[in-house]
């Protein structure tokens, strides 16, 4: 039984909205509103959602770049939400993160060598300058760049190269779990392919566990083992990749997968088009938050929020009804078995 690296229970992050003369709290932006998930060692957990889903906020809460409002974040059995100071710093080293925007995630005035050696020296992982530089050289080569790139500045690199540097930087503290927050969204298709391949290779080499956050369903399908689908701050469905993409049971997952434009004009399929827009996280619909756009919503959905429950082992769904939904995407060969 593989170890659970990270478990999140009931995570909430509410941002207060202040207003009025007295600066009272008028309401909350409920970015994350009760999220559970579990990531096992060595796997890639894909977290999918559209804007307002809260997926990026989840990533930031794990690292405590933002402090969670409620809930537990359990890293290898230890709740890290309450840790402070040195104890927390020691745990933080075990996490790595690659951000979405390669043009903003590096200090423009720092050389790559500086960017890579700084965390090592700060955490006293490696004492001397020489050792740190050696390791930096090693890492930079491992991500596909050259040693002399160490002495350059971020602005001299393309987006794809900067992401490689970001990946190298994430690895400087020998992390366990790497959070990838839309790492390829800003990159061109061909560059994206290079970076995704790099990430796969590194995962095998260093035995890393990934939390891959993205809105791009094709990328998630390619990279993930398990997938969690978020909507307006909560988890709608979580299961192994095959199930999510072929036999989803939540209507949102179904619509999401079917909405994907397929780069193959020979295949056409009936698309599920959801009506209306995504509600604002300030005004989350009562009961089931998806009901305003759900083609199957009933009055009951207005009253009670469905809990996230396991329909089968490993397949969690948050819906009052057991719906039999069609395959969301056309299958290329008709002989494919379900």
């Amino acid at each position, binding site marked *: 039984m593989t170890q659970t690296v990270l478990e999140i229970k009931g995570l909430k992050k509410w941002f207060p909205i202040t207003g009025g003369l007295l600066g009272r709290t008028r309401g909350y932006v409920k970015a994350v509103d009760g999220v559970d998930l579990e990531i096992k060692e060595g796997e890639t957990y894909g977290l999918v959602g559209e804007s307002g889903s809260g997926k990026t906020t989840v990533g930031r809460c794990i690292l405590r770049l933002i402090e969670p409002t409620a809930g537990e974040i359990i890293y290898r059995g230890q709740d890290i939400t309450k840790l402070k100071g040195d104890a927390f710093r020691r745990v933080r080293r075990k996490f790595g993160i690659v951000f979405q925007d390669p043009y903003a995630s590096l200090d423009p005035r720092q050389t790559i060598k500086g960017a890579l050696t700084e965390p090592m020296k700060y955490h006293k992982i490696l004492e001397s300058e020489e050792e740190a530089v050696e390791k930096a050289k090693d890492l930079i080569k491992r991500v596909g760049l050259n040693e002399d790139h160490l002495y350059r500045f971020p602005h001299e690199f393309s987006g794809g190269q900067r992401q490689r540097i970001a990946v190298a930087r994430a690895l400087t503290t020998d992390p366990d779990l790497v959070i990838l927050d839309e790492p390829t969204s800003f990159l061109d298709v061909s560059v994206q392919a290079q970076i995704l391949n790099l990430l796969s290779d590194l995962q095998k080499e260093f035995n890393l566990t990934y939390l891959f956050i993205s809105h791009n369903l094709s990328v998630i399908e390619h990279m993930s083992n398990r997938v969690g689908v978020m909507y307006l701050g909560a988890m709608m469905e979580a299961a192994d990749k095959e199930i999510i993409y072929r036999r989803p049971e939540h209507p949102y997952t179904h619509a999401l997968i079917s909405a994907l434009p*397929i*780069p193959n004009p020979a295949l056409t399929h009936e698309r599920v088009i959801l009506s209306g827009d995504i509600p604002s996280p300030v005004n989350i619909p009562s009961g089931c938050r998806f009901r305003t756009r759900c083609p199957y919503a009933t009055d009951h959905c207005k009253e009670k929020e469905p809990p996230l429950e396991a329909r089968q082992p490993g397949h969690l769904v948050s819906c009052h009804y057991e719906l039999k939904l069609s395959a969301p995407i056309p299958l*290329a060969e008709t002989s494919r078995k379900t």
Partner: protein
Amino acid sequence: MNFHTYAGEVKALDGVTFLVKKGEALGLVGESGCGKSVTALTIVGLLPENASVAEGEIMLEGQNLLTITHDQMRKVRATKIAMVFQDPTTFLNPVLTIGEQLEEVFLLDPERLAREAAHRNIEIGKEEPGRGAAVHKLPKSQQKKVAKALSLDVLNQVRLPDGERILKQYPHELSGGMRQRCMIAMALARNPDLFIADEITTALDVTIQAQILELLRELKRQLSGSTLLITHDLGVVAELCDRVAVMYAGNIVELAEVKELFANPLHPYTQGLMRAIPMIDRKLERLETIPGSVPDLIYPPSGCRFHPRCPFAFEKCKLEKPELLHVEKGHTVACHLYGEGKA
């Protein structure tokens, strides 16, 4: 066409040739920096100050857009071409209501308003009721009335049935998807012959994008104009376009009907691109990548601009730039592999 910058001359477009047939949707695909947006901006005449067109012509129904006067160009932009951009927030004026902005567009073509007024028998006051062809311009207040009626029509066309209310709203009060529809409405308002859409679904969420794609499909069926659809997303292209042109580093490298292109990509770049996309259903451990990166257009590679990254490159590719040649059934490629039987 080139950009003049402090760092050097950026040779952005290096001989781009294509045509858009009446009523069809042509997709212009490529990665960032390939010049697709720049091509569109050149057509519409909205290039920044440091840009200049070195040579070439852009023919719209017999008129060369590169040689006409500013005033003529403005008229063309008002009535013949409409362009819609990726980011509706910067495109829509935040201090005007949607109604006011739509009105602005309609008021650009007073002759049309007069025609519509007669056509719909809209009250135009006590003077000269329905004199049709003789009345070229209505008084301002009447123009606004007609404009409003037309606005409601066009909002309906983009599936925003709550037109009356939306006309009174400001852009920030609407969601991203709705803003995008308003932008499309403003483009349709001109009844354009050519509709240019520059990455209009890129910034949208997947489910909203699906709505907009559905809308565009509908509109394409209903309207007679042509569309130039610029995108980097091959999925969108497969959904909407009749023909596709693939661009790389300022050149068109392949052009074909959409089914043909996907079934039988000829240019090595197109092939590489298709293999690099993660597609649901393809069980691949690793994606195939195109080695190297997009060239610096200040010092572009000699000959074929793709040769440094091409797995099939040979001597000629370094020396001579390949021409766009017709291979079969409307499928053209710019590659030495297919010229003069050199495969």
